[in-house]
């Protein structure tokens, strides 16, 4: 005799679970809505009137900042306590000391919105660490 009947035994739990999922099928697809928020909000900045507070975020660290939005697309970007890397960047001359460790960043090409300015400054900080 080549085969011996050993009787039956319950299948392991993992196989039972797999089979039950196959029998039940997949549940209905749940569409996940995309958040359409401005970049400044996505980065966790908060706004109070014409003043934004938050951090410029890079892979090298997050740096406190403030942004004041004036009338007529005029926006001032401030950075608190720039690191040594930023101070050694070729654009350091564009940071104007406003006392108490706050620096106003002079924008050669002014962004039309706060989010674009944050992106530009985050890019500059990244550059400073990589140069």
């Amino acid at each position, binding site marked *: 005799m080549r085969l011996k009947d050993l009787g039956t035994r319950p299948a392991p739990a993992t196989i039972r679970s797999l089979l039950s999922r196959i029998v039940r099928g997949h549940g209905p697809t749940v569409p996940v809505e*995309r*958040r*359409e*928020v*401005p*970049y400044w*909000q*996505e980065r966790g900045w908060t706004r109070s009137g014409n003043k934004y507070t938050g951090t410029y*975020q*890079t*892979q090298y660290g997050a740096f406190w900042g403030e942004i004041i939005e004036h009338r007529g697309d005029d926006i001032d970007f401030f950075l608190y306590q720039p690191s040594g890397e930023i101070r050694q960047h*070729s*654009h350091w*001359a*564009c940071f104007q000391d406003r006392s108490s460790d706050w620096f106003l*960043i*002079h*924008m*050669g*090409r*002014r*962004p*039309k*919105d*706060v*989010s*674009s*300015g*944050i*992106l*530009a*400054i*985050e*890019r*500059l900080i*990244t550059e400073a660490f990589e140069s």
Partner: protein
Amino acid sequence: MKRLSVVVAGTGQIRDVEIQPGTTAGDILNQLGLKDYLLSKGPNDPFFANAESVFDKVNDGEKIFASTKAEVGERLLCA
């Protein structure tokens, strides 16, 4: 063909596009009517030049940013 989600940084609006090999950043911006904007993959990456082909540099389904042109001032202007 690749699909891209272009996030307009200032508003957060997301525009979905499909691109073919050879599509440039300028093609995308023109198509979306985003004059005076630049495309980038994010703050850790440089802006795409207008004539630069984007297809090979992005993954299917990737999110990229369109932001208005902004630069911290040139050293000579700031000094």
